[in-house]
């Protein structure tokens, strides 16, 4: 199988990640609870993950709250910054992990910037929306459907200028593009552990520049006589026994990403996505591509997109079709009715993968 669904999760997990998971399951007790060697082993592995993430994302280890997913982190961040009735500015390419929590809180959502691969338009619309007043802003770094790389540094700067607290969804960028809590000044940045960071599913990160509102309350192994959740990071956001094996695997994944280098990963993904986009255009498919694009490309087949993904699957190509849990992004691109077929590359992207995909795509003609 040629796996081109890295936007959903990295697969298969690299051998060092699998080894780290297995080793942690063999030798780790419950961290933060006991002082015996197996518990301390777990404590060390978790801190190793925090340290690796802190170096990659330009923050301190305690600012890294370990979550079960990017969605978990986004919910924590949104619940912290937003209250019912607030006006919240979001980009036109947000995932349901952003829009559903906002909808659930009953906020006024202002969508700003809906043109694909047009950062100038994104910034103009973004500033206009912020100028009208906002209680918070949430925006994705990279569209999970179209691979559009939003001008996140400038969007962050505008939020700071208009003094609007903000959250960045780094679901599709963590592990392939620079993400900096320190430089961006975001209140929160959420990332999955299992996509670009190559860790196991069930892991994620919330990078915090302020104390989050806990979604759950419970034991943290600290200040046990205090019946309030601790008022310090990362404990405030981490009640209950953590996913030690997953976190150990995530640490290994982050280590691999750092060794490979972000620019090398980004280049590989970008060029293979571009190669596929050009090939698909030659085959006559409507393709969404542009200058500011990562390793993800969407196209519209001449049949139902799920049927097309099924045909590609039969020819050994794993892709995702439909709305990709991002109806807002499809609405922005005008593909809400049809959906798209999405191909998304990972750090090991090769020209051979692209050629195999384009060969299989001929079966859609």
């Amino acid at each position, binding site marked *: 199988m040629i796996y081109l669904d890295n936007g959903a999760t990295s697969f298969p997990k690299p051998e060092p990640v699998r080894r780290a998971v297995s080793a942690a399951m063999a030798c780790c007790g419950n961290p933060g609870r*006991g002082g015996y060697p197996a518990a301390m082993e777990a*404590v060390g592995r978790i*801190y190793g993950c925090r340290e690796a993430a802190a170096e990659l994302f330009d923050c301190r*280890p305690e600012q890294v709250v370990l979550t079960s997913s990017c969605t978990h982190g986004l919910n924590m961040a949104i619940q912290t910054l937003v209250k019912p009735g607030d006006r919240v500015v979001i980009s036109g390419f947000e995932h349901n992990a952003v829009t559903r929590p906002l909808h659930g809180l009953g906020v006024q959502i202002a969508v700003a910037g809906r043109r694909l691969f047009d950062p100038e338009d994104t910034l103009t619309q973004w500033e206009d929306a912020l100028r009208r007043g906002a209680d918070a802003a949430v925006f994705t770094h990279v569209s999970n459907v179209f691979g559009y790389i939003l001008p996140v540094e400038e969007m962050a700067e505008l939020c700071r200028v208009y003094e609007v607290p903000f959250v960045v969804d780094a679901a599709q960028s963590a592990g392939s593009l620079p993400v900096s809590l320190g430089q961006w000044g975001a209140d929160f940045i959420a990332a999955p552990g299992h996509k670009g960071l190559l860790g196991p599913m069930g892991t994620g990160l919330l990078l915090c520049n302020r104390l989050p509102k806990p979604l759950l309350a419970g034991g943290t*192994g600290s*200040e*046990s006589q*205090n019946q309030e959740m601790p008022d310090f990071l990362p404990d405030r956001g981490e009640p209950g026994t953590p996913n030690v094996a997953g976190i150990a695997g995530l640490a290994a994944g982050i280590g691999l990403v750092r060794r490979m280098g972000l620019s090398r990963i980004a280049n590989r993904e970008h060029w293979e996505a571009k190669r596929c986009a050009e090939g698909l255009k030659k085959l006559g498919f409507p393709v969404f591509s542009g200058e500011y694009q990562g390793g993800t490309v969407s196209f519209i087949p001449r049949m139902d997109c799920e049927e097309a993904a099924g045909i590609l699957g039969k020819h050994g190509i794993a892709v995702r079709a439909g709305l990709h849990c991002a109806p807002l992004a499809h609405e922005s691109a005008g593909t809400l009715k049809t959906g798209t077929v999405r191909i998304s590359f990972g750090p090991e992207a090769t020209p051979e993968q692209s050629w195999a995909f384009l060969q299989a795509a001929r079966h859609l003609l």
Partner: protein
Amino acid sequence: MKFCFITFRSVTFAQNGQRSLKRVGIDTILRRTPKGLEQRGCGYCLQLKETVALEAVDQLRREGIEFSKLYRFRENGSGEEWPV
């Protein structure tokens, strides 16, 4: 040998402290804080030689690493807070 404990509110703070002290050549042992020293229930501390305790405290302060208290233990096992 006399030794000291530097206590922390969380294991992560203690680990930050351990890393920081290691960088300046101070070896420590990360361990659970003895119940008798812990006022809020459950915590971690760094055990280190008394001879380097004040240097360690200075280093933690320089790097902005939050700690709770410093305790000094005598050879007979009795201990006391060392105000710093």
